[in-house]
C-alpha cells in the first residue's frame, strides 16, 4: 500500500500526460486525424466503462450496447422532443444510464459465467428490438438526426456550437478525461481494490466478509453509467441516433477494444480503441476482406500480448501502471 502511494505521482503524471497529449494533438495533427481522435475519445470512454466490469471485476458482458444506447437515446430524444440543451441532455442521459444499469445489474448478476454473458446479451437484444418497435419515436434503424435541434452550449458570457469541429473535439476530450480519471480513482480506491479481489478470487473475497453481490452491482452500475455517458456524447457530438448503435456489434466492440489494449489497465482501452479504429480504417482501404485482416491482426496481437498491449507492457516493464 505504501509503495503504491509512493508511485502515485508517476501514475498521475502519466494519466495527466495522456489527457494533455490529446489536448495538444488537436493543434498538431491534420484535421482528418483530429476528427478520428474525436471519435476515438468518445468510443474509448465507452471502452473505459466496459473495462470497469471486465477488467476490474472480471465480469464479461455481451450487452453493453444497451447502456451505450440508453445514453444515446436519452440524450438524443430529449434534445429532439423536449428541446433540452446539450449539457442538460447529457446529465439526464447519465442519470438514466445509472438507473438502467442498476436495474439490469440487479437482474443479470443473479447469474454468473457464461449464463451472465448470455443473459446480458438477451437483454441487450430486447433493448435493440425495442428501439425498432418504437420506431415512431426512435426513428428505428433509419435513425434520427439531431443537427437542427442542437442548441449551443452556454458557457456564461459566450456559447459554443457542437457542430464546430474544435468544440466537438474538446467536448469529447472532457467526457473522456472524466471517465479516464474516474477509472484511475476507482483503481486506487478501496472499492476498486475489493473489485479486483472479487476478480481474482470471488470466494475468498466473500469469506473476508465483503458483500459480493453489492460490489458487483456497484461495478455494473458504474460501468453502465460511463457507457451511457459515452453514448450520450456520441449522440451530441455526431448528431445522430439509430438502432444500429444498439446492435450486438456495439456490445462486441468494447470487448475487443478492451482485450486488445489490456483489460484491467486504465490506459489499455484507449490504446485498443484507437488501434482498432485505425486498423479498420487502414485495412478497409486495402481490401474488402478487411474484417479478416482485422481478425488475424487481433489474433496475432493477443498471441503476442496475452494480457493486451498495455497489460504486456505493465507485466514486462512498467509494473506500477494501474
Amino acid at each position, binding site marked *: 500500500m505504501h509503495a503504491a502511494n509512493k508511485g502515485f505521482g508517476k501514475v498521475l503524471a502519466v494519466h495527466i500526460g495522456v489527457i494533455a497529449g490529446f489536448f495538444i494533438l488537436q493543434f498538431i495533427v*491534420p*484535421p*482528418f486525424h*483530429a*476528427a*478520428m481522435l474525436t*471519435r476515438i475519445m468518445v468510443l474509448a470512454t465507452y471502452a473505459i466503462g466496459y473495462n470497469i466490469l471486465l477488467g476490474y471485476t472480471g465480469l464479461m458482458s455481451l450487452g453493453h450496447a444497451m447502456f451505450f444506447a440508453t445514453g444515446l437515446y436519452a440524450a438524443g430524444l430529449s434534445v429532439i422532443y423536449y428541446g433540452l440543451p446539450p449539457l442538460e441532455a447529457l446529465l439526464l442521459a447519465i442519470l438514466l444510464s445509472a438507473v438502467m444499469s442498476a436495474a439490469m445489474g440487479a437482474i443479470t448478476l443473479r447469474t454468473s459465467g457464461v449464463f451472465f454473458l448470455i443473459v446480458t446479451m438477451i437483454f441487450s437484444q430486447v433493448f435493440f*428490438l425495442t428501439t*425498432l*418497435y418504437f*420506431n*415512431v419515436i426512435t*426513428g*428505428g*434503424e*433509419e*435513425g*434520427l*438526426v*439531431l*443537427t*437542427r435541434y442542437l442548441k449551443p452550449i452556454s458557457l456564461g458570457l459566450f456559447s459554443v456550437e457542437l*457542430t464546430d*469541429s474544435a468544440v466537438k473535439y474538446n467536448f469529447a476530450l472532457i467526457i473522456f478525461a472524466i471517465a479516464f480519471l474516474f477509472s484511475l480513482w476507482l483503481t486506487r480506491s478501496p472499492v476498486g481494490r475489493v473489485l479486483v479481489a472479487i476478480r481474482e478470487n470471488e470466494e475468498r473475497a466473500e469469506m473476508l466478509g465483503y458483500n459480493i453481490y453489492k460490489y458487483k452491482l456497484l461495478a455494473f452500475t458504474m460501468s453502465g453509467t460511463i457507457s451511457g455517458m459515452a453514448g450520450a456524447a456520441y449522440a451530441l457530438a*455526431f*448528431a*445522430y441516433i*439509430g*438502432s*444500429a*448503435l444498439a446492435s450486438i*456489434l456495439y456490445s462486441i466492440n468494447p470487448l475487443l477494444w478492451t482485450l486488445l489494449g489490456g483489460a484491467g489497465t486504465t490506459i489499455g482501452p484507449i490504446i485498443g480503441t484507437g488501434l482498432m479504429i485505425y486498423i*479498420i*480504417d487502414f485495412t*478497409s*482501404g*486495402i*481490401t*474488402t476482406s*478487411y*474484417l479478416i485482416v482485422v481478425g488475424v491482426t487481433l489474433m496475432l496481437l493477443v498471441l503476442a500480448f496475452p494480457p493486451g498491449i498495455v497489460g504486456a507492457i505493465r507485466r514486462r516493464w512498467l509494473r506500477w501502471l494501474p
Partner: protein
Amino acid sequence: MVSGDKISRRKALKAISNAAAAGAIVGAGVVGAIGGFMAGSTTGGAQQTVTETRTREVTKTVTATETVTAGAPTGGNPIKIGFEVHRTGIGAVYGKWYERTTLAAVNLINEMGGIDGRPIELIIEDDGTDPQRGAQVVEKFALEHKVDFILGALFSNVVLAAAPRAGELKIPYFAVSEGYHVPSGKLNRYSFQPGITDVRSQTQAVAGWIVENLGKKITMIFPDYAFGYNHRDWFGKAARDLGGEILELIPIPPTETTFTKYFPKVPADTEVLYHVMVGPAVLTFVKEMGEFFGAKRPEIFGFIDSLEGVAIDSPGLEFLEGTYFWEAFPRYLDGYDTPYHRFFREKVGVDENGADVNDPKSVATYSHMFSCWETLFIIKETVEQSGYTRRSPEDYRAFIETLENFRWFNEGNQHPQGAKLFNGRLHQCFGQQFISRVENGRLKTVYRTKIEDSVYESDVDYTKQPL
C-alpha cells in the same frame, strides 16, 4: 443535357467543342422531358437514333480504396469525387453494382473530356453499411482526401448519419438512396438526392394504378420498422385518397423467419395484397405465401427492393408468377427499350435480362443503381454551369444555388431512367415509375406512371438555410 431555369453562365463554347464526344449524351433533351410527361401508357420509350460515344466496357473490379481516373483527359486539375460505397455489410449486394455503375459513368465522363475539361478523380471508401463508419468516411473524404463532392450512400441509416457531418463540413453530399430523408427536411442545405425518386413519391405514383386495376380493398404486409412504415404511411394515404380502402395492416417483426401465422390475418375480402418484405427471409416469405393462398390468391403487388439482385426465376419464387412489382427502372430491357437505356446497359455491362454480361447468374440491383450514373452527370452539369473551380465557400455557394435552380433533368444518355423534375427547395427529384408483372419467370413491364403522379407538396425549403 440538363436544363434549368438558370442559363449557363459560361462555357458555352467549350460545351460546343465537347459536343461531338458528348453527342450520345446530349441525345433527346427536351423530347425526353416531354416523353416523361407523356408517359402513363403501356411502355415503350421513344426510339431515337443517337450517336454513341464508344467507350470501353467497364468490368474492372476495384478492391481497395482507389483513385480512379480511367479515360481521363490529360489536362487540368482533377475534380475529386468521394464515393461512399457499401462494399461490405448488409448493403454489399447493392454496393457491388453501385460501384460498377459509378465507374462506368466516371469513365464515360472522362472520355467525354471530363468535367469542365478536368478529369474526375474518384476516391472510393467502404462504409461497411455502418452509420458510425459512414460519418467517418465523410470526414475522411472532406478532411484527408479533400474531395470536391461526395457521392453518398444507399442505406438510409448510413445517409442519415453521414449527411449531417457533410453539412457541418460544408461539402455537398449526394444521396443515392430513395429513402425519404432528404425531402423530409431532416438533412441540410448541402444534402441532395437528384438522381433517384424517394419512397413517398414512388408509393404515391403506383397507388392510382393499383386501385384502378387490381382492386380497392388492400391489405398491407410490411416489415415492422422504418422502411415498412414509410410504405404503410405514404402508400396507405395515397390509396385512401384515390378511393382505396386499407383493410388490414400486418407489420412483421424484423427477426421473423417464418410467416405462416401472419397470412390468416389477411381479410378474406382482400382484393390486393401489398407487400414490401426485404432481407434474407424474403424467399421463405414468398414460399409460405404460396403455400397459404395457393391458386385462390388475391392480386399481389410488391416492391422490387425485395428481389434486387435475385433472379426472378429462382426456385421458390414460382408463386410470384402473375404478381406485380414496382420498378424504378425495368430489369429487362424490353420494359423500357430506349436508345439511352441500351447505351446505359452497354456501358455498365448489363445484359438484356438485367444480369452481368459476363455472368448471367449475377443479377444487378437494376432498379436503384442508375442513380449513381445520373447523379454524376448532374454534378458535371452543375459544376459547368455554376463555374465551380475549387473548394471554397464562394464556389460551393454558386454550385448549390445553381443546382437548386435546376428544374428539369431531361431524358437522354445522362438520364436513361427518364426525365426528372427537380424541386430545388426539397433537393429531391421526381420521375416516372414502372409496374411490371411476373410472366414466365421474368418481369414484363405493363405500365409507366407519369412524372406528375409522383409529385407531392411539401413545406420543406432547404434554400432558406444559410450556407
